[in-house]
């Protein structure tokens, strides 16, 4: 016997599930999540060996709330500097390759159009912000992502690219000295590479909070690919 149908007042009646995420997107999303945790944990162990930024003797780059501070053992991976370096220089390959696979998919499929924040999204972003601040009652119409999501996702992809590039600038400051100079030198590149960690961490917290508060169905969509939630509209 089928269970009696109970009316669902919160969701519109009989919305068909929509295919939301290609398997490449889902794979690289979760792969990046795991690898980033490993990169950050081994990175914190590496940082512990010289917990400041600047040429020996100073001056040191600021702000750095973590100057001369180590990190608790539970947050570090590798046990000691060599162990952490070997983790970091191993995980960097799947992280970079996964990132390239994802970007190639975005480019080849045309998906980048629904993700990349462009000047024409500014107006929509303001409307969306008004809605969040309760200055506007109705949810503005949107495609796959609203303009603020586009801004957040475009920014975090940019940060990912920046982390890899500053990583290379630190890894080979002599062979790639032009790249290192682009970031202001070896110590400045270390500084930006380190700040990326806190931007990723902050993004992760907000990202997860919004998923659970605003649109829990999007979590299932990132696993199965199918979306059955409140914002099924598509570009």
């Amino acid at each position, binding site marked *: 016997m089928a269970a009696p149908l109970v009316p669902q007042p919160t969701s519109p009646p009989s919305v068909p599930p929509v295919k939301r995420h290609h398997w490449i997107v889902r794979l690289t999303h979760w792969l990046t999540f795991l690898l980033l945790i490993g990169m950050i944990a081994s990175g914190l162990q590496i940082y512990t060996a010289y917990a400041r930024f600047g040429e*020996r003797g100073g001056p040191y780059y600021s702000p750095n709330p973590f100057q001369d501070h180590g990190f608790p*053992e*539970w947050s570090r*991976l590798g046990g000691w500097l060599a162990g952490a370096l070997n*983790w970091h220089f*191993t995980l960097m390959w799947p992280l970079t390759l996964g990132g390239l696979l994802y970007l190639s998919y975005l480019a080849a499929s045309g998906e980048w159009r629904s993700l990349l924040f462009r000047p024409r999204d500014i107006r929509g972003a303001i409307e969306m912000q008004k809605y969040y601040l309760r200055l506007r009652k109705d949810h503005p119409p949107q495609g796959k992502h609203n303009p603020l999501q586009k801004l957040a996702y475009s920014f975090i992809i940019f940060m990912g690219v920046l982390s890899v590039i500053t990583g290379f600038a630190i890894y*080979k400051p*002599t062979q790639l000295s032009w790249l290192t100079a682009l970031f202001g030198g070896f110590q400045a590149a270390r500084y930006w590479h380190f700040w990326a960690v806190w931007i990723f961490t902050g993004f992760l917290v907000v990202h997860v909070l919004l998923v659970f508060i605003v649109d829990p169905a999007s979590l299932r969509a990132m696993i199965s690919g199918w979306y059955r939630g409140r914002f099924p509209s598509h570009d």
Partner: protein
Amino acid sequence: MIDRRALLRLAAGAGTASLVAACGWDGGNAVRPLLLDVSRFNDWVGEKILFSRSRLAPQYDIAQRTTDVPSYFISPMMPMLPNPSAWRLQVGGLVREPQSLSIEQLQAMLRTTYTVKHHCVEGWSAIVTWHGVPVSAVAERCGMLPQARYVRFDSFDSGYSNGWDLASAMHPQTILAYGMNDNPLPPTHGAPLRLYSPTKLGYKMTKYLVSLTFTAERPGGYWEDQGYPWFAGV
């Protein structure tokens, strides 16, 4: 029978426990060999793809020198020679004419001076001026044989040593340094002679040198054998 909630709790517990156990983990017997294999692959990428035999490290003005450069050695006390005038650099291995060179003989050879940035694996950097003779000039003097593919550098600092790929050793900025910041090399930084190159991390630059040996097999090294990257090019 295990109910679903208990199973979930078990899975969550196991997940947390393994995560906590992973912290400070160098990979153990299961993963560490894999990490070291990738490190060897990275050596290959560093040597064959990113390293250039002719690209020179950027040079700095002497006004930018770092005043306080830390000194590192592995002996409990600073390594000192009992009789400095008896010191000779032994050059051997795959060479036509093994040499035994005094500091005066080395100083009479081709002299190279540069002010470059030193990169330590720990993350610090310092700008220093070095004076010395290119390793390539020593290789020429002793008649290095074509079978030579690596160079082994040994010290009197409790057996500290390093192995180098030949291309990095023959780089024009790879020198045997007898001077630092316009002065003779001080004992804190490897007197009477140390290896220097702006193309590698600090731990590859053997201090307190006693010998230089050209080999066909890849020599290990003090830190390298403990898991630090072998090529360590920057």
